């Protein structure tokens, strides 16, 4: 049990709803924070609203592909981001979600969970994404009776147990590596070939308690009061097999949090917000960046860069309107 104290300060966000903001970033992830940094430095009246400050970084045990940091935890990186924006006095509203957006006479009105309404000339949607579900029998039945979506939160609960990881991308392989340190046996099941970085795959292969099934489709999660295992299909041999396990971490990618703007802007078939090279959406003055967009690579450095572009584009828009 690691005691590692991570105190994040008291949260007292009082927001001034009487002023007209220039730029409001919705989202406290890499995209929202970097956008706030750029906007504030351009002299814009800037606000960042985060339902969960830190975003997906909080669920990431280690980041080793953000230039300038050889390796650090996702949480530590998010603390650096927040310190940076606080050093230039960006206003933050934390633990509050925006529930709706309206554009009235060139001004955006953002309604918060608590009913307060913010007014702004431009807005950035940087609401990121949430874990995708497998969509198989048993997934909902055993949700929280074995089925889990946050490896760093829940791995400690599987000490000495058998655990399955569903997925073959970076987050699945990272989860396998992390969980294998605690669990007795880890089985990774993925429906096609690995999509993860080779360095991660190599690191995983070095662990002795990980078994891998590629080209295997999970058909069902079974159990009684809690999950007991999965049934899967080996697509090469067309044979069904079972794996007994106490838990399964589902790490099969994400779905964009675009619900907030689904009636305002164009989305693609995957519900991602369509943006151009300036992060403009189909609605002038409304920008999107990071995982919520149709950007092909969902990465921290990509999200931060897009946040920067969105803020610069918003500044241009304000100057010419």
């Amino acid at each position, binding site marked *: 049990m690691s005691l590692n104290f991570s105190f994040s300060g*008291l949260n007292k966000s009082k927001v001034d709803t009487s002023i007209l903001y220039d730029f409001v970033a919705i989202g406290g992830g890499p995209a929202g924070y970097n956008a706030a940094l750029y906007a504030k430095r351009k002299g814009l009246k800037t606000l960042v609203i985060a339902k969960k400050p830190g975003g997906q970084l909080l669920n990431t045990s280690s980041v080793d592909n953000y230039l300038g940091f050889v390796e650090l935890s996702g949480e530590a990186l998010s603390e650096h981001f927040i310190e940076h924006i606080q050093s230039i006095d960006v206003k933050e509203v934390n633990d509050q979600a925006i529930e709706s957006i309206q554009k009235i006479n060139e001004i955006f009105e953002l309604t918060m969970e608590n009913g307060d309404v913010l007014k702004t000339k431009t807005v950035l949607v940087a609401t990121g994404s949430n874990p995708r579900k497998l969509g198989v029998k048993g997934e909902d039945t055993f949700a929280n009776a074995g089925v889990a979506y*946050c490896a760093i939160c829940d791995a400690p609960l599987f000490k000495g147990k058998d655990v399955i990881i569903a997925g073959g991308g970076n987050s699945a392989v990272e989860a396998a590596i992390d969980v294998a340190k605690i669990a007795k046996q880890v089985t990774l099941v993925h429906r096609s070939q690995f999509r993860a970085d080779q360095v991660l795959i190599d690191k995983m292969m070095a662990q002795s308690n990980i078994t891998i099934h590629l080209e295997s489709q999970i058909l069902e999660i079974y159990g009684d009061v809690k999950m007991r295992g999965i049934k899967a299909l080996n697509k090469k041999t067309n044979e069904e097999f079972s794996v007994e396990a106490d838990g399964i971490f589902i790490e099969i990618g994400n779905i964009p949090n675009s619900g907030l703007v689904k009636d305002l802007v164009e989305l693609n078939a995957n519900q991602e917000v369509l943006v151009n090279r300036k992060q403009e959406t189909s609605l002038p003055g409304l920008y999107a960046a990071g995982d919520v967009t149709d950007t092909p690579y969902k990465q921290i450095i990509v999200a931060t860069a897009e946040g920067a572009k969105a803020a610069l584009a918003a500044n241009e828009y304000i100057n010419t309107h």
Partner: protein
Amino acid sequence: MEKLLNKEVQDQLREVFNELKENVTMVLFTSEKDCESCEATQGLLTEVAELSDKLSVKQHDLNSEEAKQYDITLAPSFVLLNAKGEYQGVKFNGIPAGHEINSFISALIEMSGAESEIPAELLERIQKIDKPVNIKVFVTLSCPHCPGAVQKAHKIAMLNKNVVGEMIEAQTFYDLSTKFNVSGVPKIIINDSLELVGNQPIERFLEQIESL
């Protein structure tokens, strides 16, 4: 013993403790045997108390009269008492380290009488609770979403004397976690029967409580 809190965290806490209004007492229960984290918890509470003269610690054995008074059955556990020495249902089972330092510190601040914001409509619903309610929130120390759930349980407890809110560190109290089938945190159990998963808004807590 080496300090648990490094200089940086100490400085942060000292500053935050400027917000303490009245005195708060932490009453810790430990056990001589089978208690891996008793010593660390005692160390943590002592170190935290040293950072403000409004904070103090008392310590008793798990088998003491005092333990019965606060319905303590696990060690380490501790409760917070307000300036009048009253128990308002704020309990921690296991060490609030890692991310849980956040729910620990905000409980201290709120227990000291510092104002906390809560919409009038919710406050009214909380005050209407008229039967005994126990809210258990199972957490792990590495879970960033857990302190939010613990803080809500404690807030409801502080606002209504019928309610007890307790944090339970799932790894330390493995048997209890198994009993309640905890395989994902935060997991919230109300009166040992209803459950909620994840850091839910206060409204969801209230819906469950009102359905009792």
